[in-house]
C-alpha cells in the first residue's frame, strides 16, 4: 500500500512551517513523527496535496521547566516523554499514559503533540492532558495564542486548531508529589484503548486532598470525571469510598458502540477501571 503522490517540504523553523501551512491551504497535512499519518496515507483514507514535515524544527522538541509548569515541545517523541525525569517528577500521569501508547517502535517516532493534535478519542494522551489542565500553545500567521485543554478537543479527530495553525508546545502545570495511574483496557497488545482511565491524586495523611480523573474513549472527546473527583476529595482513601466514587464515572459520558464494545459495556468498564486507577493512584 503506497500513499498517493504529494509534495513534501521540510521547514527549518516555526515561522517557515506556519508560512508553508498558510500558503498550502486546507489540503496540506502536518507530519511530525508520522505514526498516525502514515497508516492513514497508506490506506488512502487521506490524500493531501502537500506534507509539511515539522520533524526537523529544533524549537518543537524537548521538555523544559518553567517554574510552576513544564513545557513539552509538540514534536517531542513519546519515548523521550516517558523517560524524562521532569515529567516523571511533576506530571507522572503523562509519563505513565505515554508508556502505554502503541509499542516501542511507534514511541520512538510518534510525538506528544502529534498524538494530541490527531485527537483520536481512543488516544491515551488526551484524557491525561485534560485531567491535568494542560494548555496548548499554537501559532498561525497572526501570531501565537493559547488554548486550554478543556476547549482544545472539539469532536472526533477535531481540535480547536484552525486551518493554518500549528501546535507548538503544551504547558503542563506541576503536580509534584502527586501519585498517578493510567488504567487501559484493550483486547490485544499495542491495540487502541477500548476504555481508559487517567487518575492523579494528592493524598495527605490518608485523606484524598485533591483528585483529577479523565476518561479515554467514553465520548467523541476526552471526558473529565468531575463527579468522581468531587466524591473523592476530602474523604479517606478507603476501598469503600473509591468504589462509591467510581460509580459516578459515567456521568457526562456519551460512549459509542463499535466492534470492540457496545456503549453499555464501555460504561461498565469505565466504573471498573476508575476504581482500579484511583486505587492505584492513592496507594
Amino acid at each position, binding site marked *: 500500500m503506497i500513499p498517493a*503522490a504529494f509534495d*513534501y517540504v521540510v521547514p527549518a523553523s516555526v515561522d517557515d512551517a506556519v508560512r508553508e501551512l498558510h500558503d498550502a491551504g486546507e489540503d496540506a497535512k502536518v507530519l511530525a513523527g508520522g505514526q498516525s499519518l*502514515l497508516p492513514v*496515507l497508506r490506506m488512502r483514507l487521506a490524500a493531501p496535496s502537500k506534507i509539511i514535515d515539522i520533524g526537523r524544527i529544533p524549537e518543537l522538541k524537548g521538555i523544559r521547566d518553567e517554574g510552576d509548569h513544564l513545557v513539552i515541545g509538540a514534536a517531542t517523541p513519546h519515548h523521550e516523554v516517558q523517560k524524562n525525569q521532569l515529567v516523571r517528577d511533576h506530571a507522572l500521569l503523562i509519563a505513565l499514559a505515554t508508556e502505554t501508547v502503541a509499542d*516501542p*517502535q511507534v514511541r520512538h517516532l510518534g510525538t506528544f503533540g502529534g498524538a494530541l493534535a490527531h485527537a483520536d478519542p481512543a488516544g491515551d494522551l488526551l484524557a491525561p492532558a485534560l485531567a491535568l489542565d494542560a494548555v496548548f500553545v499554537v501559532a498561525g500567521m497572526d501570531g501565537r495564542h493559547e488554548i486550554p485543554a478543556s476547549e482544545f478537543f472539539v469532536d472526533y479527530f477535531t481540535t480547536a486548531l484552525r486551518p493554518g495553525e500549528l501546535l507548538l508546545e503544551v504547558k503542563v502545570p506541576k503536580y509534584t508529589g502527586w501519585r498517578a495511574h493510567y488504567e487501559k483496557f484493550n483486547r490485544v497488545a499495542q491495540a487502541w484503548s477500548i476504555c481508559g482511565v487517567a487518575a492523579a491524586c494528592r493524598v495527605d495523611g490518608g485523606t484524598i486532598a485533591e483528585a483529577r480523573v479523565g476518561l479515554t474513549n467514553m465520548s467523541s472527546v476526552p471526558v473529565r470525571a468531575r463527579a468522581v473527583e468531587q466524591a473523592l476529595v476530602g474523604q479517606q482513601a478507603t476501598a469503600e469510598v473509591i468504589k462509591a466514587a467510581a460509580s459516578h464515572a459515567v456521568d457526562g459520558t456519551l460512549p459509542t458502540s463499535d466492534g470492540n464494545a457496545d456503549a453499555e459495556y464501555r460504561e461498565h468498564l469505565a466504573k471498573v477501571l476508575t476504581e482500579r486507577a484511583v486505587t492505584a493512584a492513592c496507594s
Partner: protein
Amino acid sequence: MRITTTVDGTSYTDEVEPRMLLVQYLRERLGKVGTVVGCDTSNCGACTVHLDGQSVKSCSVLAVQADGREITTIEGLADDGELHPLQQAFHDNHALQCGFCTPGMIMQALDLLKENPDPDEDEVRSGLEGNLCRCTGYQNIVKAVRAAAEQMPSAARQADVPQEPVTASMPSEVSQS
C-alpha cells in the same frame, strides 16, 4: 527529492519520490531484502530497522524522513560472516518457525537490550510488544533474547548508547541448548 543515508555502514545518495516508504527504498532500491514487509499496516513489526540507533517500523516511515540519518538493518548485524550474538541465540534456541518475523524480532530485541541489558521474561515480552509471530513461537523467542543478553558483550549492543557492564547472573531456567 534527493536523499543521502548511511545503511549498514555504506553511504547512499538517491533520488526518491516523497511518498516512497523507507522499507520500499531499502528493498527495491538498495536490494536489502533481509528487511521484510509483513502486515503492511504497522502492526506486525517484521519491517523493524534502526534509525539513528532506535527501532522503527520502516513501513511507516517515509524514505525522505531518513535523509541524513543512519539506518541499520538485519543485514548489518553479522560481523564478517560471524552471526551477531542475537542471531546466534535465535538459531541455538529454535526461536523461529517460518522465520518471517525473525528480522524484526531481532532488530527490536537489540533495541530492548540496549536499554535493558538483562530483561526478565515480562520485560522481554513487553519490549517485543510491537512484533507479532504468526507461528505463535513466542516461548523460544523470549528464551533466545534472554540467552543473548547473557552472552552479549556490551559492544554488540552498539556504541550509540551508554554502555553498562554485562551481568553474569541469569535465571537458571535459561540454558543454552
